[in-house]
């Protein structure tokens, strides 16, 4: 499967943009301008690769809270993400009522997750089956971390999807830590994808720092789902190079050497090298992309900072549909 050159360029820009935006969000949080940030740094390769493998015009996305790059690549704008971070009225997920990173966007078919991890998994299976019952040619992709795989929701969602051959892709972004819990204390196996055999669906493990490898694996899973072949469990292995959130000090539970070692394997370094080696990127065009990303992020930051807060009288609405 060859990836078109324009797609590679677009993916690279999305990764650069996501990282630039993420870095800015950390700065804003540390400056006290916003309350909280939960970062997707280091996972951009998985998210952008997977987003480009889907049909973003009609498929459904159930992201999890690190899917910063995923929702950007899916069509959300830096402005929209900043509005969420600053808790402004224009935040498309919740109108400024939710915590940041609970991404949701009705027009783009992005369904917001709840804070308890893994709850989005059975919900995604439900949407996938609903689309199938309606005869829609739609695939649903749902993301979660390796911590979520220990929850009953994961099990019930995968089992039900396999029995009913739901057109859904389960994308586990295995970043090796569930807050402070290393994978070795989370499960007694090496690969999350080995769980697939227990549900009767294909399971694949892919290097999550290799954007093209993720693109291909998810593309294959999407084609299977679209042709009636049922669900796939894709495990993309990576490493969380940042603390769990802006409220976490990861020095308490892991060494700096470990983090630095993984930073060197990061998706941007890797993808950049690939593009340079294949003469698909040069310093001049890279500088232009970087400048463009910074300009977009600057503009989004100012836009959100000046945007109005939600009205207090609307704080408890809309809770129910139609409110």
């Amino acid at each position, binding site marked *: 499967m060859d990836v078109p050159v324009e797609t590679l360029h677009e993916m690279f820009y999305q990764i650069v943009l996501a990282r630039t935006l993420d870095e800015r969000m950390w700065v804003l949080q540390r400056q006290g301008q916003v309350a909280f940030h939960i970062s997707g740094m280091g996972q951009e390769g998985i998210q952008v690769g997977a987003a480009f493998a889907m049909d973003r015009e009609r498929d459904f996305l159930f992201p999890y809270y690190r899917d910063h790059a995923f929702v950007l690549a899916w069509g959300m704008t830096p402005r929209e993400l900043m509005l969420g971070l600053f808790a402004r009225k224009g935040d498309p997920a919740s109108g400024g009522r939710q915590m940041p990173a609970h991404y949701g966007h009705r027009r783009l078919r992005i369904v917001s997750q709840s804070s308890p991890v893994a709850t989005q998994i059975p919900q995604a299976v439900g949407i996938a089956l609903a689309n199938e019952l309606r005869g829609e040619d739609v695939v649903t992709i749902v993301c979660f971390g390796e911590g979520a*795989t*220990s*929850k*009953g*929701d*994961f*099990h*019930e969602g995968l*089992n*039900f999807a*396999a*029995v009913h*051959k739901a057109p859904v892709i389960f994308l586990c972004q295995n970043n090796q830590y569930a807050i402070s819990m290393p994978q070795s*204390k*989370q*499960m*007694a*196996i090496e690969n999350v994808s*080995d*769980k*697939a*055999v*227990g*549900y*009767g*669906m294909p399971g694949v493990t892919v290097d999550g720092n290799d954007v093209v490898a993720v693109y291909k694996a998810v593309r294959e899973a999407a084609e299977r789902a679209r042709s009636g072949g049922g669900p796939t469990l894709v495990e993309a292995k990576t490493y969380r190079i940042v603390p769990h959130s802006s409220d976490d000090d990861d020095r308490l539970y892991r060494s700096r050497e470990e983090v630095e070692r993984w930073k060197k394997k990061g998706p941007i370094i890797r993808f950049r090298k690939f593009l340079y080696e294949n003469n698909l990127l040069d310093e001049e065009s890279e500088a232009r992309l970087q400048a463009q990303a910074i300009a977009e992020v600057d503009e989004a930051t100012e836009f959100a900072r000046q945007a109005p807060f939600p009205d207090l009288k609307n704080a408890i609405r809309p809770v129910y549909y139609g409110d």
Partner: protein
Amino acid sequence: MTLPNEDLLQIYEYMLLTRAVDDRIDLLFKQGKIEGVSFSSLGHEAIAVGAAWALGPDDVVAPLHRDLGAYLVRGITPRQVLAQFLGRRTALSRGRDGNTHGMGDLNLGILGYVSPLPDQLPLTLGAAMAFWVRQEPRVALAFFGDGSSSEGAAHETLNLASVLKAPAVFICENNQFAYSTPTKKQFAIENLADRAAGYGIPGVVVDGNDVLAVYDVVHKAVERARRGEGPTLIEAKTMRMRGHAAHDDAFYVPQELLAAWREKDPIRRFEAALRQQGLLSDELAEEIASRVAAAVDDATTFAEKSPFPEGREALEGVFCDV
């Protein structure tokens, strides 16, 4: 693993006793003497008796509603069972719960179960973790069905048990139907034991109608757990030979399927093996059968003569100080 002849004959007698008590329960239900519902163990005798036989005296077992044989092997008497089904004060739940619900006895190492069946799994894991924390060489064994396997509780338990290498054994009684749901609508795989690979623990499929095979795999799993090597997932394949409960005529189960499984009846099979080995003569078989029949008759009389609980007792026994 060869068991002494004496054990083989005792296993045979417990299987017969299980069936005789079960038949009597069915009869009493049809006579209108049992309130509510009544669940049958018919066809599950080899799993319940074989698995319970593999446990040591200090181990703990969490049987479900089709594991009457396990209760009996652990020391619950036919009198206690029938009193329980008839809702009498002499029962283990003192007449406040029906059928095998609440038939636990911690003195015998039996955890009573609650109606959401898979919830027994994390409870059993809790017992196993307590043994591990106290450094006691004890093992906890939990039963669950093919239907329970789809519940989150099953997954969370198997995962945590495998991470902690808990001294636990999980035996799934795959009896082909979860109420009316056939296994092909329950999961998209052939063997539930295949799930073990996803937890990093051994998974074994065993013929659930072969009592010695069940004993053998459970014994190995129990000893493995006792050595600190962690849990095992065992899938014992069998067939539910009556409806989900006595009110259910199981119209959704093909008659041919039941007929095929009737040919594999665990008791007839074991009896034939014992006779072939010269361990069971007609005379001995008759002696055992009459002992079993007498025990069931005695239990029925005892239960029917036992008083019902008083209305005011309904609220007692909820907390540990009463």
